[in-house]
């Protein structure tokens, strides 16, 4: 009993400070969501969307994690449904896609449900509670002494709305262009490695379609492809030839817009070839918000 009491005490203490980079995504219900993997997690700021699109249901929560945790799946679908269940008006749902959203380890389709159930989303039954003990007990793997000594990453700010912002310049350190170049080379190496271990998963594509169908009933759905370094985009397009065409036709079939920004990659800066740094993330989100605004306006006139 003593152990359990102590454990609960320190879990509560931890919940009052910085838990980890994903914790804030699970501490509140959402009016609208940003869905996807790491590119969306880092590259889309809910603040900018809320600022630009004044009349939408709030709050907008960045609910994207990474390709191992939040590929399209039943688990992600259930978490999204839970996250927006008490919303009153139609929401905005931005679904970011790239080949990483639809990949899974080779030959895993048979056991994909078990794999997904072991992700953060699978293990967290309560996706909107503050404090979220359920999240901490099931996912927090660091020692609990962090309740007293919280170690935040130098270049990353985890916002309350779930956005993980990466800043190049801090008081003590700068991510230089050389470092960016080096990190980009690592990203390319990792991507090459992933091509050998992962494959396109029909289950993930089906889950994506199921999600679109569901969210269409709940509000306005926008499927987007976030820009990244041109070499990385080229690599992805070479590996999955016709990706944009394929998803363009899927989104057309279900009558949702597909905004593809991958061909505007040279307008934005990444910190590792794949993920937008803070300023580019804000700039990109602003552009995205304007496009959404225009789309909604046009749709209104049409109706």
């Amino acid at each position, binding site marked *: 009993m*003593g*152990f359990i009491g*102590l*454990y609960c005490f*320190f879990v509560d203490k931890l919940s009052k400070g910085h838990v980890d980079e994903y914790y804030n995504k699970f501490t509140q219900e959402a009016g609208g969501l940003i869905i996807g993997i790491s590119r969306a997690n880092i590259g889309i700021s809910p603040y900018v969307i809320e600022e630009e699109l004044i009349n939408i249901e709030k709050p907008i929560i960045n609910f994207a994690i990474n390709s191992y945790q939040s590929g399209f799946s039943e688990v992600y679908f259930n978490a999204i449904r839970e996250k927006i269940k008490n919303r009153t008006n139609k929401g905005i749902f931005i679904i970011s896609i790239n080949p990483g959203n639809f990949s899974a380890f080779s*030959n895993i389709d048979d056991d994909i449900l078990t794999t997904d159930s072991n992700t953060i989303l699978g293990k967290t039954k309560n996706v909107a509670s503050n404090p979220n003990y359920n999240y901490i007990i099931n996912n*927090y*793997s*660091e*020692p*609990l*002494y962090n309740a007293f*000594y919280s*170690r935040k990453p130098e270049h990353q700010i985890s916002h309350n709305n779930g956005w993980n912002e990466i800043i190049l310049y801090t008081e003590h350190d700068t991510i230089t262009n050389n470092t960016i170049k080096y990190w980009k080379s*690592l990203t390319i*190496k990792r991507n090459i490695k992933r091509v050998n271990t992962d494959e396109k998963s029909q289950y993930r594509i089906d889950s994506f379609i199921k999600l679109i169908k569901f969210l269409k009933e709940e509000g306005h759905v926008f499927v987007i492809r976030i820009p990244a370094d041109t070499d990385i985009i080229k690599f992805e397009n070479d590996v999955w030839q016709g990706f944009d065409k394929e998803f363009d036709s899927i989104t057309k079939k279900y009558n949702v817009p597909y905004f593809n920004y991958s061909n505007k990659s040279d307008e934005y800066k990444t910190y590792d070839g794949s993920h937008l740094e803070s300023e580019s993330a804000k700039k990109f989100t602003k552009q995205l918000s304007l496009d959404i605004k225009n789309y909604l306006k046009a749709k209104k006139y049409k109706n």
Partner: protein
Amino acid sequence: MLFNSFEFLLFFPIILIGFYAIPHKYRWLWLLLGSYYFYMAHEFELVILLFISTCVDYFCGLRMPTASKKNKIFYLLLSIFVNLGILFSFKYLSFFTSSIQGLLGFFGIVISETENLGSYNFNQILIPVGISFYTFQTLSYTIDIYRGKIEPEKHFGVFALYVSFFPQLVAGPIERASRLIPQLKKKVDINLSNIKKGLIMMAWGFFLKVVVADRLGVYADAAFSDPEYSHGLPLFIGALFFAGQIYYDFSAYTSIAIGAAKTMGVDLMQNFNRPFFATSITDLWKRWHISLVEWLRDYLFIPLGGSKGSKLKTIRNVFILFFAVGLWHGASWTFIVWGLLNGAILILENITSSLRMRVFKLLQLKQGAINFLARLFGVSYLLMTLIFFRSPSINHAILYIKQMFNITGLHVNILNNYFELVLCFILIVLVQTIHYFKGNDKVYELVTQRPKYIRYTMYTAYAFIIVLFAINRQNTFIYFQF
């Protein structure tokens, strides 16, 4: 069921209280049911294999003493065939088919996956937890009966409990029937001193697992995941921490097993005896995973002739022994290379012993200095060979070693958490010091020999340390997979 799980925290007190609450003559049944539940909580369907091994060996063991010589051999072979057959089918079939495919591929004969013994994918076969442990344990029983060393156990329930006794079922120590069965049959009265010692050993095991081994594992995992992106000291530390991780992880399991058994009046054998203080590789293998090494010595090495024949024959036997050590650990070439590297150094050590003595004499080195050098060499060699043990492939291990010696800077922390790095080193020194003074088996003396107020302070400190410093990953014990 994992020892380091919430379920076990409920399961164990129930078993212990039930054990002392029910009359002696029904305790075997209580423990047997508990042991099967313990196993099924982890792997429900595969318990059938445990049951088959138990039935076959019980039957063979019972028949052997009264059988004719020919039939005796038949029963022994039946036991070996069934046990090793199950082990081979579930643990090694995939490895052998892929190795044969690879070999044929080398000669230009390509067999597609669908032609591979039908269309079944052998990689999908689930390896039953602890299969190597209980297979060896139950095999030693029939072999010992065949050799006339022990009498068969007539009580099926007691025999089934010997095979499945939950504290050591999934990761040893591999006990012999002559030691364990009499203890399981002995009437045990409540002995608070034994219960206390057992619980302290279990608490020590939990500490070793969740605070030490899992912490070292975080760093080791990071180092081994992508060696091409790192080099020099971080990889060296990764290898060192993996050596620590595997030792403390397995030692933790053994401590919990020994402690849990002790609370019920059963003394399990020691599996480790301060291996990092070994003064030679030969000495190290007398201190590391003792129950397996003794098993292979008694049932493989000595029957092959041991070290009694010619030098060449001894070398052959040592290589066969260490090939078996490697293969026992897993169906992979990395384990086999690890085993063979240990066999090779053991032979080299043996061959050069007189030469080394002459050199030490010439250099006028004192025994203390010789022991220090030997320990340093032993641990370093163990560390190097364990890189093969940890790596997913031989190429990965070679790349790791290559990158490890590619020293271009002194930045040591790939996790960028210096506090944790320093804590890892402090914990290694702490545990080694405790093991040095108390051995692996008498750690409870640290507590039991203190005055009451110090004991209670230690209990409180322990609770805080576990809660605050544990790595909360519920990692399985590494040796579960074997």
